[in-house]
């Protein structure tokens, strides 16, 4: 037999159950967010103090010289900290001329780049201070500069 009141009660219970489940979810979400925030707050100083960040150095070749991107000094002295990890990007902007980047002391030599071609090389600076010469192999008289490695103080 159909009992309208019973059916109505069931519906109310379902609604309550649904409400109860929603409140629990909200509490859980708040807890997860709080834990996440706590982790971020605790870990942020650690990430900031980590010295594993890679330094980016963009070199542009034009007019038979190396230039740091956006600067006007030809074949500049590049200063690195001892042990520092550096990503060199070399972009050839010399129409009709092929260039590359080489540091003989490090056994580093990139491929030869046509006009508008670029290459990237990841290196770690020597652990001891010193000076190394960087060149473009085919134009080593004119395209020649110094990489100066200094103490990591």
């Amino acid at each position: 037999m159909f009992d309208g009141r019973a059916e109505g009660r069931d519906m109310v219970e379902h609604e309550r159950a649904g409400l109860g489940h929603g409140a629990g979810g909200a509490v859980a979400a708040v807890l997860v967010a709080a834990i996440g925030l706590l982790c971020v707050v605790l870990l942020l100083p650690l990430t900031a103090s980590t010295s594993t960040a890679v330094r980016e150095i963009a070199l542009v070749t034009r007019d038979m010289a190396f230039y740091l991107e956006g600067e006007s000094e030809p074949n500049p002295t590049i200063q690195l900290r001892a042990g520092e990890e550096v990503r060199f990007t070399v972009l050839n902007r010399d129409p009709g001329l092929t260039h590359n980047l080489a540091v003989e002391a490090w056994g580093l030599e990139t491929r030869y780049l046509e006009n508008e071609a670029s290459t990237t090389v990841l290196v770690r600076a020597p652990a001891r201070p010193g000076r190394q010469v960087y060149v473009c192999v085919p134009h080593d008289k004119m395209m020649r500069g110094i990489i100066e490695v200094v103490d990591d103080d």
Partner: protein
Amino acid sequence: MELDTTNWSGEGTFTQTLIDALDAVEQVSLLRVEDASSSRSDVEFNFISNELFLRFGTRDRQVRAKMLGIVPVTRTVTEPVMTVNDLERALCEIDEVGPPDYADAEMLQYLRTERIVPPYQTRGYKLVELVRIYEAGSESR
């Protein structure tokens, strides 16, 4: 040809060769010669970089068109009598100049190198002359 060398130091023998060659090209109406900022020298090299900006003569040409897509009209279009690519071909035929080391629609580039050994010296230095020719109004590279 109108020649402007007020911003040129006069360095560069191949540059002078190019100026003479361009003077003989009657389609060139104006030539401005400038030292490029990248010129520099050291113990082992002397890098001379010059830029030549030129303007070609123009001619008027009648072009038929339709005003509002209906009324037939004749318009006069002024256009240069030569392009950079035409100039490249013209200079190629001159023995002292020859083909450029690089060319595109806006620029011709010539690179000349030689080793100079002054008297009573053994090593000498490398003389590198880079000359770029642009049509006036183009940005130098």
